[in-house]
């Protein structure tokens, strides 16, 4: 039998395991490159040209250009890597996390102030 992967059935959640990591290798390595100030500058100047330097799929590039973090995660991205894109954009972790929930920035912030998302969310 294959390995047990019980984390596959958690709603609204993608666990970054070896399969995801393999899929997202170049996407995540691109993100790592944004830890250098000069690379952030080059990326900001011409995002498409910078992305084309990496062995990413066209889908991954489009997801980055659209700042669609859910899509990035589906394509193998990990949030700690993707956070480097947000940092380059001057976004906070709260803005990034909120952007994946379908809520507005204010709605998400208010949800957090009011105690955060109910842990029973999405469970049957």
């Amino acid at each position: 039998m294959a390995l047990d992967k019980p984390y596959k059935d958690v709603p609204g959640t993608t666990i970054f395991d070896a399969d995801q990591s393999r899929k997202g290798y170049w996407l995540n390595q691109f993100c790592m490159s944004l830890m250098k100030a000069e690379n952030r500058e080059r990326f900001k100047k011409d995002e498409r040209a910078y992305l084309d330097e990496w062995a990413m799929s066209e889908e991954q590039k489009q997801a980055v250009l659209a700042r669609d973090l859910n899509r990035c995660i589906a394509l193998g991205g990990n949030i700690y890597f993707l956070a480097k894109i947000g940092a380059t954009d001057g976004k906070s972790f709260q803005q990034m996390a909120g952007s994946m929930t379908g809520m507005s920035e204010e709605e998400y912030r208010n949800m957090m102030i009011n105690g955060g998302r109910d842990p029973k969310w999405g469970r049957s």
Partner: protein
Amino acid sequence: MARITASVYTSHVPAIGAALDLGKTHEPYWQPVFKGYEYSKQWMKENKPDVIFLVYNDHATAFSLDIIPTFAIGTAAEYQPADEGWGPRPVPKVIGHPELASHIAQSVIQQDFDLTIVNKMDVDHGLTVPLSLMCGEQDPVKGAWPCPVIPFAVNVVQYPVPSGRRCFNLGQAIRKAVESYDEDLKVHIWGTGGMSHQLQGPRAGLINKDFDNRFLDLLETNPAAAADIPHIDYVREAGSEGIELVMWLIARGAMADVAGGPLPKVKHRFFHVPASNTAVGHLILEN
């Protein structure tokens, strides 16, 4: 001989670092968070350790996908605060303790923990935010952290992360290692990260106060039960990033009661929601 005198547990939310660095500590949003660490800063002054063994995780900073150590111990002389994309935090560099770190590495590897030894790495918010919270703000150039720090990085980014039980056992091995060091040193062991939070997907923003407070209860008096919590329970109950709590079990495993001594004294406990996306939890235990 060296000995572990206390353990400290705290979240290491990056936004706390940003609030400190941007002078936002007196904003109403942040006041309750920093108030929870007032006692701790005083306690640190009165109980200054000689070395801090600081368990944290690297957040895709020093370790990319090129190399992912399950457990990495820093044996370098110093570590620079990392540029995580916002520029490096304006905090002092971290001075290491190569002798004790190498000693612990040697001892723990011989106790069958397969550590990776690291001599070159930048340290991210996972390590510097707890230092800021416990030691207060420090000038990046003229200031200094109160003592040397041994960074101990745990992989909680790419699954599978080590189990809570493995972490708890590792803590016990670290205690033995510290106690076999000849020099008379007071060592703190800190477990950082958590508490409940999820930073990704439609479920981002999950917080579970009940889980967190039960975890704090168990940590005080029944850490072996906390060590039995399987990975999937953290994900389901505490959010995908709540798994960071396994790092607290390394610190807890190093306390004297686990080796048959008396229960530790609870010096301080604090819990607050939210800091950014995260439930902030904090505990100080003394041997």
